[in-house]
């Protein structure tokens, strides 16, 4: 059989833009990013496809741009999934170690995992992710309990699920380009994978990806994702607030937000004015800088408060030593790290892409698509390893019973 490199497309169909990266996966599993494509999004509201045709056209335009940039065709797609329709719950299970010598076997692990994942979902909903928390053997946290000695093995999964129709819509947009969706990955997980280091995940970190229509977050502790969530509020709401509050068009409000918006109020002089355009043309108006900052900061604070509320008791400042990592287009708002630090009571910083990422892809808006490639490849490698382990166990059992 002729083996060749695989070309993987990482696609995020966001509320404001569609981003596509093409990675070339070589035989030795080395990934090279060879193409980028972006297009203004249409037909997507709060991360969910509302107009299939418009969303398809925008997504396919971005895919074509990326393919032209890479000079090749995409073989399969890793697709980001976001939106307020996604929910999650935690379920855990425990089994008594079956062998007489109390040594944990692969069968024990398989059983406890299947039990922990086996909670029924409401009608019409389907699983997007099963995120396993670390195993517990007789109460102690262990990364891999195989061949360890103990009596009671516990496993817990944070299960992310969503309505079948909305998930299928996203997949069908990609299928309309005649490319298979190989992986469906939560946007927050993708961003977290690329921005939070293994040390951050071990010490505890909260990664918040503030997009235009949604805010995705993931909480890491003990080296794994503990909880994820999506708040259907994003940078677009800041624009909307300014538009309503200052009686501006969306475009004008967006312009003011980008030029004068802040996540914290720093202007002391309430009489300080800023011009809308600054060109003294007809229609150019003055606005209170203090007022703009107040509107934008209030919404940012509200977003953080909602995230904190959704996290509930799962979040504690003591167990989030690495603090809050912010990313997404809205994370470029000045003072946002300060606001996050005040709301969550931990240190906060803007996420920085790893050193291997090219300069043109270091923008926070690309962290999600970069993470799609990284998470997709690592999860596939993990799946492959599990399959191999299962096969070897089967062979082992065959010889054991012979």
């Amino acid at each position, binding site marked *: 059989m002729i083996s060749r490199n695989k070309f993987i497309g990482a696609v995020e169909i966001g509320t404001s833009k569609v981003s596509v990266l093409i990675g070339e996966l070589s035989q030795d599993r080395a990934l090279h990013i060879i193409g980028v494509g972006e297009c203004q999004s249409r037909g997507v509201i709060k991360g969910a496809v509302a107009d299939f045709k418009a969303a398809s056209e925008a997504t*396919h335009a971005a895919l074509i741009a990326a393919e032209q940039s890479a000079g090749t065709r995409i073989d399969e797609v890793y697709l980001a999934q976001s939106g307020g329709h996604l929910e999650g719950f935690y379920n855990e299970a425990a089994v008594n170690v079956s062998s007489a010598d109390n040594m944990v076997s692969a069968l024990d692990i398989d059983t406890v995992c299947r039990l922990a994942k086996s909670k029924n979902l409401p009608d019409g909903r389907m699983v997007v992710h099963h995120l396993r928390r670390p195993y517990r053997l007789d109460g102690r946290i262990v990364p891999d309990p195989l061949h360890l000695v103990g009596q009671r093995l516990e496993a817990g999964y944070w299960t992310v699920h969503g309505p079948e129709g909305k998930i299928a819509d996203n997949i069908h947009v990609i299928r309309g380009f005649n490319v298979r969706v190989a992986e469906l990955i939560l946007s927050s997980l993708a961003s977290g994978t690329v921005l939070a280091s293994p040390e951050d995940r071990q010490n505890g970190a909260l990664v918040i990806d503030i997009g235009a229509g949604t805010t995705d977050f993931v909480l890491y502790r003990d080296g794994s994702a503990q909880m994820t969530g999506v708040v259907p509020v994003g940078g677009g709401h800041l624009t909307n607030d300014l538009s309503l509050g200052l009686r501006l068009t969306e475009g004008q409000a967006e312009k003011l937000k980008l030029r004068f918006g802040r996540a914290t109020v720093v202007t002391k002089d309430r009489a300080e004015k800023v011009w809308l355009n600054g060109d003294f043309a007809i229609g150019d108006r003055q606005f209170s800088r203090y007022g703009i900052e107040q509107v934008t900061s209030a919404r940012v604070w509200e977003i953080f408060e909602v995230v904190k509320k959704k996290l509930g008791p799962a979040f504690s400042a003591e167990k989030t030593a690495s603090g809050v990592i912010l990313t997404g287009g809205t994370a470029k708002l000045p003072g946002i790290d300060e606001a996050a630090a005040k709301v969550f009571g931990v240190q906060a910083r803007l996420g920085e892409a790893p050193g291997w990422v090219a300069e043109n892809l270091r923008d926070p808006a690309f962290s999600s698509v970069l993470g799609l490639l990284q998470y997709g490849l690592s999860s596939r490698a993990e799946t492959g390893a599990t399959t191999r382990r299962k096969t070897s166990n089967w062979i082992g059992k065959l010889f054991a019973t012979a």
Partner: protein
Amino acid sequence: MSHLNVNPPSTRTWRDIPQNVTTKGMTREGKKRLAFAVGNIVGLALVIGAAGWGIYELVSVWENNPSRITAAASSVPLREIALRTDGVLDKAWVMRTLGLPKGARLMELNLPQLQERLLATGQVQTAVVARKFPDILAVTIQERSPVARIMAQVGAGAPQAFMVARDGSVYQGVGYDLQLAETLPFLDGVKLVRSGSGFARVEGLDQVSDLLGAARANTPVLYRTFRVVSLARYAVDATITVKSTEVDAITFGVVSDGFYKQLARLDYILDETRRQNPSQPLKAVNLAVGGSQVPVAFDIPTVTADGRVPHAAAKPAAPFGTALFSLPPRNSSSSKRDF
């Protein structure tokens, strides 16, 4: 909890969403990609089908009539022979030599056999025979160049002149210009041995070729006087003896000195002899000895009582004198021979 009773309800994941696609939900680019993919599949299917059909045909022919597989494919009759040569042989000679039957088909020709026929003539050094489809036989040959002639008798026939090439091959020259062929000196002092339908190669012809080549290039006047080149003493003392119209025996050494210098000395000796003793022609010159003195032999004419030189008929019986011909020193300007 007992493992045997574990039968948890299965949950549906996003992977259960069917990813089959209809063209209705596709954009133009999607449809284009689909058409491309379908084209690829169809193309692959056609290739596999064609390969399968080919294998089936081959197997069925193998089972029913295996000779068809090994038989040469039929082709159109040979129309032309395209000849490329670096010598004098022409197309008519090639056709005569190949002896192809009339109406022979290109695929029926036995190329190695035809090549053998060409090489058997001796004049052809290398030959390449190739089919040029649909109906041309391409013949490319490299010919041997004759260095000398040799008289030999084949069977009971009269002796005839053969050509000798640099590599010692003896062959019956075909197509050479007669005037040019007659300028070639005869080879003497060698014993021809039969080999198949021809003769075995003669040793020492490379040295003869070098000598004659140097003479032809540098002293063409001298070369034209060369009549016989003898290898009689080549095996004994590595010398080549040349009989010219002026001197009966000019001995060249193949190891003592280069032919160029020997020819230069000979030229000088002949000039000086003509100038100093026009009545005493040289009988022998031994250039193989080398050094600044060259042994020469003069033909001393017998003087009668009345002081006249007798008729030339008496010459063979006449005694001759030997001397050492001193050559001028190398640094003397007059010794520098410039051909």
